[in-house]
C-alpha cells in the first residue's frame, strides 16, 4: 500500500470506529466456514493469491469466471425444474404442462422404493410408493413417463444413484422403443453414490461394488452415449444435510477425483470421459459465499484435472447444475420462501451456473402444487427477462471482496481435499465415516445457532407472523398409487416370457461375479420386462445389501447454550424427572420406511442427549413393526418419528398398530417431526400422535414439550 492510500485507509478506519463505537480489530465476523469477513476490502486484498488469477477471462484457465467465453450473453442458463410424483401418467401430464410454460429441460424425481431397488408391490415399501417422486417398476412406466416427449430433443436429468443400472437401462430401452437411438439421448444421470453413503442414504450395495457400477456407467456412456452426462457429482445433498460451503466444496471435488480414478481403472483415457462429468451444488442464503463457491469450484477442478493429465480443455471445465436450498425453506410464514429462493437464484446466476432449479415455496411442507411450481419457474424467467443479469459475463469479477472470498474458500477446501487424499481417497474416508461425522457436526452447529437466536431466520425465531397463512398443498393418495402400480406389475408379469426373463436375470448375476460391464446385461433384462426390483435383487445376490454404521457426535449442540436459560430449564426438568421416576426420560428417535434423510433425526438425537435425555437411535429403513419392537424392548417413554418423504400418513398409523399388537397397554407416546402439511395434523392427532414439529422448530422447545408430555402421560397411570 503506498503512503497516499495508507493515509486514506487510516482516515476511513477512524471514521468507522467513530460511527460504530467499536475497535476496528473487533469488527470482523466469522462465517460458518470459519472464514473471517472484514467490514471493508481494498485492492490489497487481491494480492498473494495461490488459486485465483487476477487477470483471467471467462472461458479461459483457470475458468474461475465461467466455463464459456460468452456465458449468458449468448444463451441463458437452462431452467430445469426437478419434479415427479405418484404414477408415470400423472408426472407425464405435469411435465408437458411445464414445458409449455417455458421450462427447457426435464429433471425426474423418483420415489424412494425405486431409488432403493424395490418394486411397488414389496411389503417393505408400502408407505413410500409414489410419495416423493414417481414410481418406476418396469420400462412400461418409463415409456409412459416420456409419452409424447421426444427423447432425441429433450435433455433429461435423472436423480438416480442406488438403482442406477435398471433405471438407466429403462431410459435407454424407452428411447429405443420410441425410435430414438441411444447415441442421440441427452441429459444426465446423477450416479453419485459416494454422497449417498455420506448423507442421503439411498444406496443399495456396499461402497466397493457401488463404485464399480459408477465406473461401468461412465465407461458405457463414454462409448455409446456421447451426448449424455455420465455422472452429476453432487454437493447439494451435503449442504442440505448441514455441511458448510467449504465442506460441500471439498467433499464434492474429492468425490469427483475418486470417480475419475474409478473411470481410469477401466482403461479409459481421461479425456474420453472427463468432458461428460458434471456437478451439482446447493445454493443457500449466504449470498456472496455461494457466488464465491461456484467460482472456487471451477478454479480448483481445473487444477485437479490438469494434475490428472487432461489434455482436452473441455476436461478441465467444471459445468454445474444448481438448486436453491431446501433446508433454508421454512414451514413458518411460508411466503418468505419465495423471497429466499429469489436471492439464492441470483447467487447461482452471479456464480455462473449452467442450469438451475428454483424450489417452490411450499416444499418445506409438501410436494409443489401447479401454482407454487409456476411461481418458482417465474422466479427464473423474471431473472432472465427483466433484470439484465444476462447481459454481462461474471459481473462480480474484480470485486475486492468476492475475489478474496473465492481465494479463501479455495484455500480452505484445498486443505480438506489434501487431507482426504492423504487418507487414501474418498471411498476410504466414507467407509471410515469421517465426512458424515464432519457434516453432522456442522449441521448441529447451524441448528444451535438458529435455536439460540444468534442467527436470525425471519418468521421463525424473529419477526414471527402473528397470523400464519394457510396454504393449499398437493395431496398424494399413496394407497391408490400403490394399487395402480401393483396392477401394472401383475399385468406385465403375466404377459412376459418368464423363462427368458429368468435367464436374463441369471446372466446378470453371473456378470456381477466378474468384471463385465453390467449395463448391457441390464438392458437385456429390462427389454424383456424384468422389473427394477428383480434386476436389483439379481445383483444383490452377489453384492449383498449395505447397512450403514451409525456414528454420532455429542456435545456440539449443548456447547452453544452454556448459560442459556431455556436450555438450563430443560436440563433441570430432566434431573427432576430422574429424581421422580428413577431414570431419565428415554426417547427412541427413528426414521421409518425408505426415506434416508437422517440429518433431522441425528440433530434431534444429539441435542436431546446434550440436554440429558437417554436417546435410542434406530437403524435406517426400519418397518413400523421393527420400530415397535425396539421401542417396547427398551421401554422408552416416547418415540420421535422423523419423516421427510410424505410417508407419515401410512407409516404412523402402522406404527401405532404395531405398538398395541405387542403391548395392548402400551403407554409409549409418539411425536412426529419433519415435513408434514398442516392438513395432515388432524389426521395424525386422531391417530394418537402427541405432538408434531415442523421444519424450523426450536429443538429446546421441542425437548421441553416432549418431557412435559411424558410427565403428563406418566401421571395418568
Amino acid at each position, binding site marked *: 500500500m503506498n503512503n497516499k492510500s495508507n493515509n486514506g485507509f487510516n482516515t476511513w478506519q477512524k471514521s468507522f470506529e467513530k460511527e460504530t463505537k467499536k475497535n476496528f480489530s473487533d469488527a470482523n465476523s466469522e462465517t460458518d466456514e470459519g472464514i473471517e469477513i472484514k467490514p471493508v476490502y481494498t485492492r490489497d486484498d487481491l494480492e498473494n493469491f495461490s488459486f485465483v488469477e487476477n487477470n483471467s477471462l471467462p472461458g479461459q484457465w483457470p475458468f474461475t469466471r465461467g466455463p464459456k467465453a460468452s456465458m449468458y450473453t449468448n444463451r441463458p442458463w437452462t431452467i430445469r425444474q426437478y419434479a415427479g410424483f405418484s404414477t408415470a401418467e400423472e408426472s407425464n401430464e405435469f411435465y408437458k404442462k411445464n414445458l409449455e410454460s417455458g421450462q427447457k429441460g426435464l429433471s425426474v424425481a423418483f420415489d424412494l422404493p425405486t431409488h432403493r431397488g424395490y418394486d411397488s408391490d414389496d411389503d417393505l415399501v408400502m408407505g413410500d410408493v409414489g410419495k416423493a417422486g414417481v414410481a418406476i417398476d418396469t420400462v412400461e412406466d418409463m415409456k409412459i413417463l416420456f409419452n409424447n416427449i421426444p427423447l432425441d430433443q429433450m435433455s433429461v436429468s435423472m436423480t438416480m444413484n442406488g438403482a442406477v443400472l435398471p433405471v438407466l437401462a429403462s431410459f435407454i430401452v424407452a428411447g429405443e422403443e420410441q425410435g430414438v437411438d441411444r447415441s442421440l439421448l441427452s441429459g444426465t444421470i446423477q450416479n453419485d453414490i459416494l454422497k449417498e453413503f455420506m448423507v442421503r442414504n439411498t444406496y443399495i450395495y456396499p461402497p466397493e461394488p457401488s463404485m464399480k457400477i459408477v465406473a461401468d456407467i461412465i465407461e458405457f456412456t463414454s462409448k455409446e452415449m456421447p451426448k449424455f452426462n455420465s455422472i452429476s457429482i453432487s454437493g447439494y445433498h451435503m449442504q442440505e444435510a448441514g455441511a458448510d460451503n467449504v465442506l460441500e466444496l471439498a467433499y464434492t471435488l474429492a468425490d469427483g477425483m475418486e470417480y475419475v480414478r474409478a473411470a481410469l481403472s477401466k482403461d479409459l483415457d481421461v479425456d474420453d470421459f472427463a468432458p461428460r462429468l458434471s456437478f451439482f451444488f446447493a445454493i443457500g442464503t449466504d449470498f456472496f459465499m455461494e457466488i464465491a463457491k461456484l467460482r472456487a469450484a471451477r478454479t480448483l477442478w481445473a487444477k485437479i484435472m490438469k494434475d490428472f493429465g487432461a489434455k482436452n480443455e473441455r476436461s478441465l471445465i467444471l459445468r454445474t447444475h444448481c438448486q436453491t436450498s431446501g433446508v433454508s425453506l421454512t414451514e413458518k410464514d411460508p411466503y418468505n420462501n419465495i423471497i429466499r429462493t429469489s436471492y439464492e437464484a441470483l447467487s447461482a446466476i452471479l456464480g455462473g451456473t449452467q442450469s438451475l432449479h428454483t424450489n417452490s415455496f411450499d416444499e418445506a411442507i409438501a410436494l409443489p402444487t401447479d401454482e407454487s411450481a409456476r411461481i418458482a419457474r417465474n422466479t427464473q424467467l423474471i431473472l432472465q427477462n427483466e433484470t439484465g443479469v444476462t447481459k454481462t459475463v461474471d459481473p462480480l469479477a474484480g470485486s475486492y471482496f468476492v475475489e478474496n472470498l473465492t481465494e479463501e474458500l479455495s484455500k480452505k477446501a484445498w486443505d480438506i481435499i489434501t487431507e482426504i487424499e492423504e487418507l487414501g481417497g474418498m471411498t476410504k474416508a466414507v467407509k471410515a465415516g469421517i465426512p458424515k461425522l464432519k457434516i453432522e457436526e456442522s449441521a448441529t452447529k447451524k441448528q444451535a445457532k438458529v435455536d439460540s437466536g444468534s442467527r436470525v431466520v425471519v418468521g421463525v425465531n424473529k419477526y414471527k407472523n402473528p397470523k400464519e397463512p394457510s396454504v393449499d398443498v398437493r395431496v398424494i393418495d399413496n394407497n391408490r398409487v400403490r394399487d395402480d402400480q401393483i396392477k401394472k406389475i401383475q399385468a406385465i408379469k403375466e404377459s412376459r416370457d418368464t423363462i427368458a426373463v429368468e435367464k436374463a436375470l441369471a446372466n446378470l448375476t453371473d456378470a456381477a461375479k466378474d468384471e463385465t460391464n453390467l449395463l448391457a446385461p441390464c438392458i437385456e433384462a429390462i427389454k424383456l420386462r424384468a422389473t427394477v426390483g428383480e434386476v436389483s435383487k439379481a445383483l444383490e445376490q452377489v453384492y449383498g445389501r449395505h*447397512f*450403514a*454404521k*451409525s*456414528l*454420532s457426535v*455429542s*456435545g456440539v449442540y*449443548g456447547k452453544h447454550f452454556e448459560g442459556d436459560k431455556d436450555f438450563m430449564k430443560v*436440563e433441570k426438568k*430432566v*434431573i427432576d424427572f*430422574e429424581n*421422580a*421416576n*428413577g*431414570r*431419565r426420560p428415554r426417547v427412541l428417535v427413528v426414521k421409518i420406511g425408505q426415506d434416508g434423510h437422517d440429518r433431522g433425526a441425528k440433530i434431534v*438425537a*444429539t441435542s*436431546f*442427549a*446434550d*440436554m*440429558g*435425555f*437417554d*436417546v*435410542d*437411535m*434406530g*437403524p*435406517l429403513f*426400519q*418397518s413400523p*413393526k*421393527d420400530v415397535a*419392537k*425396539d421401542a*417396547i*424392548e*427398551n*421401554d422408552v417413554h416416547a418415540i420421535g418419528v422423523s419423516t421427510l418423504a410424505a410417508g407419515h400418513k401410512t407409516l404412523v398409523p402402522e406404527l401405532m398398530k404395531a405398538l398395541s399388537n*405387542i*403391548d395392548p*397397554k*402400551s403407554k409409549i407416546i409418539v411425536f412426529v417431526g419433519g415435513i408434514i402439511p398442516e392438513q395432515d395434523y388432524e389426521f395424525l392427532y386422531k391417530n394418537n400422535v402427541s405432538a408434531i414439529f415442523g421444519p424450523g422448530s426450536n429443538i429446546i422447545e421441542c425437548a421441553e414439550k416432549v418431557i412435559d408430555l411424558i410427565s403428563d402421560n406418566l401421571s395418568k397411570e
Partner: protein
Amino acid sequence: MELIENIQNGERAAIAKAITLVESSKDSDQQISRQLISELIKKPGKSIRIGFSGPPGVGKSTFIESFGSYLVTQNYKLGILAIDPSSQITGGSILGDKTRMVEISKNPNTFIRSTPSRGALGGISMGTREASIILDAAGYDFIFIETVGVGQSEIVASNLVDIFTLIVGPGSGDELQGIKKGITEYADIFIVNKNDGELKIEASKTAADYKSALSYYKKLDELEKQVLLVSAIEQTGMEEVIKTINQIVDQNKLKGIFEERRANQLEYWIEEEVKNIIASDITKRLSSTGNISKYSEKVMKNEMSMFEAVEKITKDTLK
C-alpha cells in the same frame, strides 16, 4: 405377581418393564425389584450367559450382529444386554447399538436392550445382573452381555457370565504384553475379528501370537484358552464359536467348574450389595455431620495434619 407370570410367558413388554424396574434408582422400584428377583431366582432357566468385551473399534456390535444372526437361524432364542457409555458432562446418552444390529433386532427370537452406563464403575450398569436373571426366566437360550470395553469392565462383566470372550482385531498381538494378566485369566475365548480381505494374513498371525502367549497361563483343571478367527462382515467362523462355547460349557459342567463359578459370582454379588448399602449409608452420615468440610478447614489452617483428620472423621463416622 402378575409381572412374574408374564415374564415367564416371555411377554416382551413385561420383560422390558421388569428391566426398567431393576435399573431404576427409585426406592419404591428397588423394593419391587428385589421381590421380583427373589421370586425369579427360585426357578432358574437354562440360559447360558456370555460376556463380550474388547477395545473400541474391533467390531463388537458387528460381531454380535453376525454371530447372533447365526444363532437365531439355529432356532436359539437370544437376549442381548448392551451397555452404552453416558456422557460425563450432561448425563445423557445416545444408545446406538441397534444401528449396528439391523438384522437381529428385527428377529422375533431376539430381545435387545441397551442401557446407559450412568457412569457406573467398569461400564457395567446397575441392574445388568438382574436383567440377565429376568431374561433367563423368560426362556432365552443365550444372554449376551456387551460392555463398553474400557477400564475394569472385563473384571466386573466376567462376574456376571458363564463364558467370557474378548474380541480383538488383527495386529493387536503386539499389545498382548500390555493386556492385564487379569483379563487373560478371566477370558475363556479370544476372538480375532476381521479375518477377511487384506487383513487375513495379519489376523492369522495375531491369532498365533495369542495362542503362544496364552499357553503360559493355562491352569491345571481348566480347558485351554481358545483363540478363534472370525470375520463378522463375511459371517465366517461362527459355527466354530458356538461349538467352542458349547464345548467349554459341557466341560465346565462336567468338572463342576460351571457351578463353582456361579457360586463365586453369588458370593461376589452379596459382597457388592453389602458394600453398596454400607457405602451409601456412610455417604449419608458424612454429609449429615459436615465433618469433611469442617476438618479440611482445620487442615488448611495447619491446625491438624491431613492423616489425623482422616482418622478422626473415620472414627466419628463408624461409631
